[in-house]
């Protein structure tokens, strides 16, 4: 039983922590400053553990990583002005990937608002288009209801970031705190839509009459917790499953019906399968341009069923035949008893043929040229860590795509990556959040040398918090994905993509993190093992092939079946000449 608090007078700052605690939060990520100081002062009365970050962007990514690893709301705290604006990138990242976070920012005193006071920024105005909702709180008596609403809005329906900006005087002054009376009042908010009976019937009709169906499995499966339902559905109906980047883990990689990742760097056969399908079942995905390619030629012969919680996603990019708007898990529960078991071996055989020469082109099958490829590192990391409770947190770029291709994820929430916004610098702080949320899990950061340097200051947070997070830097001395685009589309004009890097191993040591450098394939597994055995954080600087390329690739705006393929023989690179 929760203690009864009706009638108790507390400061706004005290109410803030009391409410956050009652929402089930144990850890928050933040950085103090003038306008949020009353809240920091009140932390001494709270059981909440505050993790001091090195930059407020890190706090938001940590809250995001925490949310993605656990499914719970992550909390980030910052002061007004620059503290709040530093959160913008992390908030936008959480927005595009539907991640539930609550950001608390201090604001100048309510009497000073609008006066361009020291460290005043209109952060609710700034974050208006990148939050699911935001609040400006100017009185202590508004704190409790606002925090309750913020948590409720962040995690219900299609989750997303909510920012609560609290003026300094609202933190300092007192109000009567009554948890029960501060119930959310959201008269216009409808997170719980469900389809009509007629729509279910139309969907079943399409499913039963389809010869070449494919399930497109997205992030919504993981958010809704519908992994088992999707599996039951696919198995009963005999329908193969293609995954989006954020859908990885929603369906086991080893499952015979799993095709792999679709889209720009998806496997060739997966994209061909989608193009030849007669029915697409989109489960909690939003037909992002990175998965559809040219919309005019996308799956031209397929009917489309879209199961999606956000009605604004229906017909946004791809026109669908049957929309089922609602929580995926509930919708599948309704559908499942009516799904007939159909033998689709002909279609599955056809997909097998589409796989064709893909295995030969796989980088794992290329002869050993003495070079270390990122794919080798990631594949070896997978071999070593596959059996445990492992979370891989990636940054953005080539290594992210190789991770998606060469690390086989069997479980939901085992891959955390910035998909929609593609935020470089996401991995390291998000991994910290993931480790805090699931301390028993083994957490690996897989990060490029470019993105690592955007938020590497959080190495200090890892050390200060004594977190066992392992870091694999995939160091190719380039902003690799941009270089790849320059190679393909800008006549190899490598403008501003070569990087002059510090010695990352020395850098890690400077932070007190055990660090090593690996440049040979034979050293990958020993280094991974050494990292796992060490009881503190470890950084491994993998110096990989500089001008390697992610294949296959659908050029931006090209049709999904028009892929640039890996040349079947190894390409000798400049380093060989």
């Amino acid at each position, binding site marked *: 039983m929760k203690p009864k608090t009706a009638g108790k007078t507390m400061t706004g700052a005290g109410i803030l922590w009391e409410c956050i605690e009652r929402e089930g939060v144990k850890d928050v990520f933040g950085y103090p400053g003038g306008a949020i100081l009353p809240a920091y002062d009140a932390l001494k009365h709270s059981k909440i553990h505050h993790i001091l970050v090195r930059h407020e962007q890190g706090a938001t990514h940590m809250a995001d990583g925490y949310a993605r690893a656990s499914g719970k709301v992550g909390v980030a705290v910052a002061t007004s002005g620059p503290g709040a604006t530093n959160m913008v990138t992390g908030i936008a990242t959480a927005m595009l990937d539907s991640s539930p976070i609550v950001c608390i920012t201090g604001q100048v005193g309510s009497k000073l608002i609008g006066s361009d006071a020291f460290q005043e920024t209109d952060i609710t105005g700034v974050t208006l288009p990148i939050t699911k909702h935001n609040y400006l709180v100017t009185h202590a008596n508004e704190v409790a209801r606002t925090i309750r609403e913020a948590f409720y809005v962040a995690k219900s329906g299609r989750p997303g970031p909510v920012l609560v900006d609290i003026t300094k005087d609202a933190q300092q002054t007192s109000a009567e705190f009554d948890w029960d009376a501060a119930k959310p009042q959201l008269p216009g908010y409808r997170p719980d839509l469900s389809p009509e009976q007629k729509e279910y019937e139309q969907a079943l009709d399409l499913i039963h009459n389809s010869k070449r169906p494919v399930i497109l499995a997205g992030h919504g499966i993981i958010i809704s917790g519908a992994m088992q339902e999707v599996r039951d559905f696919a198995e009963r109906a005999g329908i193969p499953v293609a995954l989006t980047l954020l859908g990885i883990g929603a369906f086991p990689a080893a499952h015979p019906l799993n095709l792999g990742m679709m889209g720009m760097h998806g496997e060739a056969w997966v994209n061909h399968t989608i193009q030849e399908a007669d029915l697409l079942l989109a489960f909690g995905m939003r037909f992002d341009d990175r998965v559809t390619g040219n919309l005019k030629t996308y799956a031209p012969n397929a009917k489309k069923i879209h199961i999606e919680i956000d009605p604004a996603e229906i017909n*946004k990019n791809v026109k669908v035949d049957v929309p089922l708007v609602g929580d995926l898990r509930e919708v599948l529960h309704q559908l499942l008893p009516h799904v007939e078991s159909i033998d689709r071996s002909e279609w599955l055989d056809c997909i097998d043929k589409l796989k064709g020469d893909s295995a030969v082109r796989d980088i794992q099958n290329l002869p050993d040229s003495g070079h270390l490829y990122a794919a080798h590192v990631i594949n070896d990391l997978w071999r070593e860590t596959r059996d445990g409770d492992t979370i891989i947190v990636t940054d953005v770029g080539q290594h992210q795509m190789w991770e998606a291709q060469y690390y086989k994820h069997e479980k939901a929430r085992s891959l955390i990556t910035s998909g929609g916004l593609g935020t470089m610098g996401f991995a390291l702080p998000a991994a910290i959040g993931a480790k805090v949320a699931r301390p028993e899990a083994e957490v690996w950061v897989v990060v490029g040398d470019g993105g690592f340097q955007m938020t590497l200051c959080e190495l200090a947070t890892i050390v200060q918090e004594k977190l066992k997070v392992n870091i694999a830097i995939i160091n190719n001395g380039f902003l690799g994905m941009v270089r790849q685009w320059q190679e393909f589309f800008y006549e190899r004009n490598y403008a501003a993509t070569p990087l002059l890097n510090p010695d990352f191993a020395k850098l890690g040591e400077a932070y007190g993190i055990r660090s090593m450098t690996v440049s040979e394939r034979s050293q990958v597994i020993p280094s991974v093992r050494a990292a796992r055995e060490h009881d503190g954080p470890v950084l491994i600087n993998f110096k990989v092939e500089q001008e390697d390329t992610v294949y296959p690739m659908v050029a931006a705006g090209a049709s999904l079946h028009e892929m640039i393929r890996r040349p079947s023989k190894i390409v000798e690179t400049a380093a060989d000449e």
Partner: protein
Amino acid sequence: MMNTFVVYVENKPGVLTRVASLFRRRAFNIDSLTVGRTEKPEVSRMTITAEADQDQARRIEANLYKLVNVLLVENITHEPSIVRDLAMIKVAATHEARSHVLELASVFRARVVDVAADSLTIEITGAEDKIDGLLEVLRPYGVLEMVRTGIVAMRRGKNTISPATAIHGELDIAEDDVSQSV
């Protein structure tokens, strides 16, 4: 085509910005937006017109609903409805022109609300094309200044959109829905 939306929103600071910002960031252009009080003090009513095809209009509606402060959205473009715009037009009216201007105003059932030595101010209420019509015939005399409210709209007959229907009952949130299990 031009779409007309009736939108009930919570009467709270910043809600107008949220609505306007939504149109901007989804790349729709607001043609006209009016907002005012309703019979319920906690609810405001907006009439928004914007150029959109049928699919876009549906997406505008869905996106408006994503705003937490939006209570109800109705696209009344294809409904029988009454649409009104109000304009005040200050026309140059010299001694000789004055009677002509007055005559035109009366043809359009407009009212003269201010008379000065060399100008007349005419108030007219009606559908947008009626106002456009008056404006057209007044132009040769010299329109000195004009202000229009933008349109307000309401469905005809017993199809009623009241703020009471816009407010859903209090959210019934189960305790375990709000508090995460620790």
